[in-house]
């Protein structure tokens, strides 16, 4: 009997997402103690309204990190895609067509990142550091630094329309989370992603085309960043040339808080989702606690470092549990 309980505790402790679960619980508890309004229906509505934008980007980053690469350009893509969408509509193109073109553009940007990284065998950190500047520069060139006119009369409802206190974007986020979980955990491709990131030499020896796997992940990552950017521009009904600045860091932080390894081969969709919530909770909780908003980055920084230390510690602990 006692053994049974011990086994159950062990099984929970070896869950890969355990540390992020604990962390989100602590964050909620702390902010709830500081301000009970943190868990009010209205405030939760506010959090759920903005979570998809970070959350969707973080999903893409996780896919890429698992396959052993990184993308710093997604904050720029997050801005570039909606700007192109707005400009195409302004030029008189129909909404569905311009929407599809701007998403294809996202995929194309991912392809370019992957192509450069794989063909010239350079670190994706460098490739995407470069493309981050290129696409942000592109945005500034296209707009002259001024927010372009946001087209009126486009059907923004299917992405950001209200459903009760929620928005449609939350359902897109939920759907994409399930989809990414399925790909990562339940398909051949997910298995190839883990192997590509975990040990590329072994993966190749086992017949996995690691180049193609990485390429696909680059494209997924950029596509999701562009899609999330369009969601934000629809929610704000504006396309600001500064949108998504620094977002790559928040997204990577969300992924890392959720247990994803920057070395590749390790990461979970559930953990990443929790990580995104942790970041949004801190952001919102600091406002509720009436702390100056400058504290946001300080806290995210501390939490990220703490999360990795905690994750590493737990992993070592559970290893001993198992033997």
């Amino acid at each position, binding site marked *: 009997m006692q053994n049974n309980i011990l086994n159950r505790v062990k099984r929970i402790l070896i869950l890969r997402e355990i540390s992020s679960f604990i962390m989100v619980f602590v964050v909620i508890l702390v902010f709830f103690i500081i301000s009970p309004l943190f868990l009010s229906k209205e405030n939760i509505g506010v959090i759920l309204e903005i979570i998809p934008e970070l959350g969707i980007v973080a999903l893409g980053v996780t896919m890429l990190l698992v396959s052993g690469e990184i993308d710093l350009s997604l904050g720029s893509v997050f801005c570039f895609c909606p700007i192109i969408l707005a400009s195409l509509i302004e030029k008189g193109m129909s909404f569905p067509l311009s929407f599809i073109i701007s998403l294809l553009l996202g995929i194309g940007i991912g392809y370019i990142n992957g192509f450069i990284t794989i063909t010239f065998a350079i670190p994706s950190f460098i490739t995407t550091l470069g493309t981050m500047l290129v696409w942000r520069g592109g945005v500034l060139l296209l707009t002259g630094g001024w927010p372009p006119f946001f087209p009126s009369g486009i059907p923004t409802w299917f992405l950001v329309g209200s459903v009760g206190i929620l928005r449609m974007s939350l359902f897109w986020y939920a759907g994409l989370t399930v989809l990414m979980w399925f790909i990562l955990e*339940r*398909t*051949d*491709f*997910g*298995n*190839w992603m*883990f*192997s590509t990131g*975990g*040990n590329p*030499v*072994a*993966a*190749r*020896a*086992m*017949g*996995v085309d690691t180049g193609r796997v990485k390429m696909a992940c680059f494209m997924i990552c950029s596509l999701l960043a562009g899609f999330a950017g369009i969601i934000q521009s629809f929610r704000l009904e504006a396309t600001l040339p500064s949108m998504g600045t620094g977002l790559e860091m928040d997204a990577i932080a969300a992924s890392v808080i959720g247990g994803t*390894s920057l070395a590749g*081969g*390790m990461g979970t969709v559930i953990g990443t989702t929790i990580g995104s919530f942790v970041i949004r909770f801190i952001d919102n909780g600091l406002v509720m606690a009436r702390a100056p908003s400058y504290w946001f980055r300080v806290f995210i920084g501390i939490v990220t470092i703490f999360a990795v230390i905690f994750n590493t510690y737990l992993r070592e602990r559970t*290893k001993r549990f*198992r*033997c």
Partner: protein
Amino acid sequence: MDRSGFLVEMKNINKWFGGVCALKNVNFSVGYDEIVGLLGDNGAGKSTLIKILSGFYPPDEGSIFFEGKEQHFTSPRDARNLGIETIYQEAAMIPKMSILRNIFVGRELNKVNLGVVRYLDIPRMEVESTRALDGVDLRLRSPHALVDELSGGQRQGVAIARAMYFKSKLVILDEPTNNLSVKESAKVLQFIRDLKSLGISSIFISHNLYHVYPVADRIVVLSHGSKIGDFKKEETSIEEITKLMVLP
């Protein structure tokens, strides 16, 4: 099937890297149900020969016959599809993945296969991997444990179980006893004998003669890209091979 000839024959293999000759007119063969020890110092050309045989790169000259038919491998996948399984020292496993996923990576079992979307059949992979591991008498906690938690010898065991499960005909082991304790080395040597009893030939690469000698049926020695010795075990002795290997 005729099992009197050779399973693998590599004839007059030449390979250059830049201006350096890595292999010079090497003839190498493996019979059916045979364990061949491939010996040589670092840089003797063992890895190059094996990488050619496992499809990593083609030879510049020479030909490869497998079960009597000439083969031109364009990728490791080609070699694997024929039943040549290579177990590299450090690169055999993906440490952060479960045993189950490691066994099936690149050859997953599917419940639904729509080409693009291939849904993993995890329950079946569980059953099959447990059966595969029983085949090499590895008592592991669960096929869901991470390879990271296994000892070096257990990892070799999993890799060999994988080769058995996929009905390989030839298993190439690259320095399988490196960094292993005496007890674990003995276990790995037993795995190699198990392979033979299942009718699977193997090539055992090492620079340690004392690991190769007890299990090998034949011993091939490479030095500076050439074959300098090829003996049936009955016809040689540890002393003779040692003398050959330490020659300049």
